[in-house]
């Protein structure tokens, strides 16, 4: 037993594999206990985790900022919806169709991200923030220009097949959607955790900490920045694809608010930490529901209840963002580590951004 544990400690891949299997088991057991209406939140949580994990790698590990990740998610969402609907039109069915669509969504977004990354690698700090912000705002409205392909403001709904009958007849469609979202999130986390511990991950951090020193060590700074942008885009595209499976691809869903929400999740969780991205996504998805439930219980007039439920979550998020940045730059994950102080720190404290 001890020998097995020691072997596991030595092999990062094996350790992450064990965690992946544990995650899958946890998802299967956990979703079995839940009510129907909770599945949609879980699926959306999966989409957020995919995108936020990619964003935390970009911002926290590589020091590039993106305020336009919603646009990348839109690319993934539309790709998945278009391909899936094409398969459905051709009457191609099978369990392999959806994974192919999601992979294609991630791949197309990664290519788009690599192109954007070429531009991003030349830009620094506020200029990069400005360029990605404009990108995020400008890209989704293109869909209304090509109405015949993207169906304008209504967007596309992806025609997903019902879950396989081998799961039993009581297995609902929403349950299936939640599985898709959470399994995608687990795959992304597994992939990024391995990447983080690999040479590529070390190169990313080297570029973040000091570009000139990294270049002197023989690393190609632009190439690493472009690779990171492409990887981050791929996961964002996958997240967008999951959102398309849940809610369809609508241009209005991929607005500035989504980009900022992702940033919020990453910052509140703790920049550069995958655990932090998960914690942040959970907070972002569930705190809003929690607050609106509390407000409804206050018994205010209808209009003020509506104003509060629409805005109080944002106000809390904004305040959290400011407080976390000023008081706890490590985010929730950093706080957790300091409180527990059990796990030795493996990476340097993420600071993010260029010097």
């Amino acid at each position: 037993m001890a020998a097995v544990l020691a072997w596991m400690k030595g092999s990062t891949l094996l350790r992450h594999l064990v965690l992946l299997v544990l995650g899958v088991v946890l998802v299967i057991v956990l979703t079995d206990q839940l009510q129907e209406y909770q599945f949609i939140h879980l699926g959306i949580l999966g989409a957020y985790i995919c995108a936020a994990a990619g964003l935390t790698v970009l911002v926290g590990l590589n020091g590039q900022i993106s305020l336009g990740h919603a646009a990348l998610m839109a690319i993934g969402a539309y790709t998945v919806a278009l391909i899936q609907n094409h398969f459905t039109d051709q009457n191609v069915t099978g369990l392999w169709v959806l994974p192919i669509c999601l992979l294609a969504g991630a791949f197309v977004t990664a290519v788009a991200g690599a192109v954007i990354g070429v531009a991003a690698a030349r830009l620094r700090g506020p200029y990069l923030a400005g360029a990605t912000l404009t990108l995020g705002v400008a890209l989704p409205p293109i869909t209304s220009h090509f109405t015949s392909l993207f169906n304008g403001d209504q967007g596309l709904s992806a025609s997903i097949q019902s879950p396989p009958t081998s799961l039993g007849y009581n297995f609902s469609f929403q349950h299936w959607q939640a599985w898709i979202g959470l399994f995608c999130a687990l795959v992304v986390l597994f992939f990024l955790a391995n990447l983080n511990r690999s040479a590529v991950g070390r190169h990313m951090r080297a570029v973040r900490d000091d570009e000139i020193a990294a270049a002197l060590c023989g690393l190609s700074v632009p190439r690493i920045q472009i690779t990171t942008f492409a990887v981050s885009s791929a996961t964002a595209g996958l997240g967008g694809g999951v959102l398309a499976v849940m809610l369809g691809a609508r241009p209005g869903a991929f607005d500035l608010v989504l980009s900022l929400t992702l940033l919020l999740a990453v910052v509140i969780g703790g920049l550069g930490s995958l655990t932090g991205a998960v914690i942040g996504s959970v907070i972002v998805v569930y705190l809003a529901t929690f607050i609106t439930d509390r407000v409804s219980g206050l018994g205010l007039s209808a209009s003020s209840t509506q104003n509060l439920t629409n805005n109080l979550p944002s106000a809390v998020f904004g305040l959290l963002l400011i407080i976390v940045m000023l008081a706890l730059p490590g985010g929730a994950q950093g706080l957790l580590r300091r409180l527990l102080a059990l796990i030795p720190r493996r990476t340097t404290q993420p600071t993010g951004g260029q010097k």
Partner: protein
Amino acid sequence: MSRFLFLTINGLSFGAVYAAVALSLVLIWRTTRVLNFAQGAMATATAFIALSVTQATGSYWLGFAVALVAGFLLGAVLEIAVFRKAETASPLNSIVIGVGVLIVIEAVLGMVYGNQNSRSFPASFSTDTYSIGNTALFSDQTLFTIGSVLAVMLALAALLTWTPSGLRMRASAFAPEVARLLGVRVGRMLTLGWALAGAVGALAGMLVIPTGLVIIPQSMDAVFVLGFTGAVVGGLDSPVGAVVGGVATGLVLSYASGYLGSDLTLVAALVLLMVVLLVRPSGLFSGVQARRV
């Protein structure tokens, strides 16, 4: 030809607004190295205050004046309360703090005024257009927009160039430590810069919201993004660049929406930004910068 003339005047009018937003961003960036993401939301807040004052007193111009004063105060208060602590943080952290302030301001406005578009926002002057033949050219409001932004820019330039306070502000931006040793209260100068930027942003909001926008908490988001585009195109360190970049953004957008279709205006802004940044990664008017090891 007359269509081209109309698009040019329209572009100059919106360009003036973008230039004002860009200028307010540059005023803050030069002195504190903070990018104020809340600039648009601050302008929306002052516009709501102006609307409330106008409704209570019946005087439009009192509301207008109150908006400018409110912008001035809001800028100063935010600098003292939040951003002073952000100045020492990394650029990324200060950007995130700005985003946080943006979200809080819009949420507070939504809680007080609601998110629906249920109000009409009066213009300073008539928006009826004068036309030559069948082509509409410009309105009194267009002239007022261009004129007032121009006046504010000249006033700011005069303030920075010829007055003792302007000299102190430039000294604080150029060499904070030396300025402090020479007796300039640098912190106070930074607050003044934020306050002036807040007032300029408020002016932009009062000018642009009546012309084609509705008054909701997110009114100024798009204007902020385009003003930011203008500032980045010009180079964040140069006030002249901000004005040129803002006007260029307005013109490019006006031509794009006139000749290509209104769906593609934001794409045109993106193309403009990308072309400029790929040629000059720090904007058109940036100085030559040595990278520090």
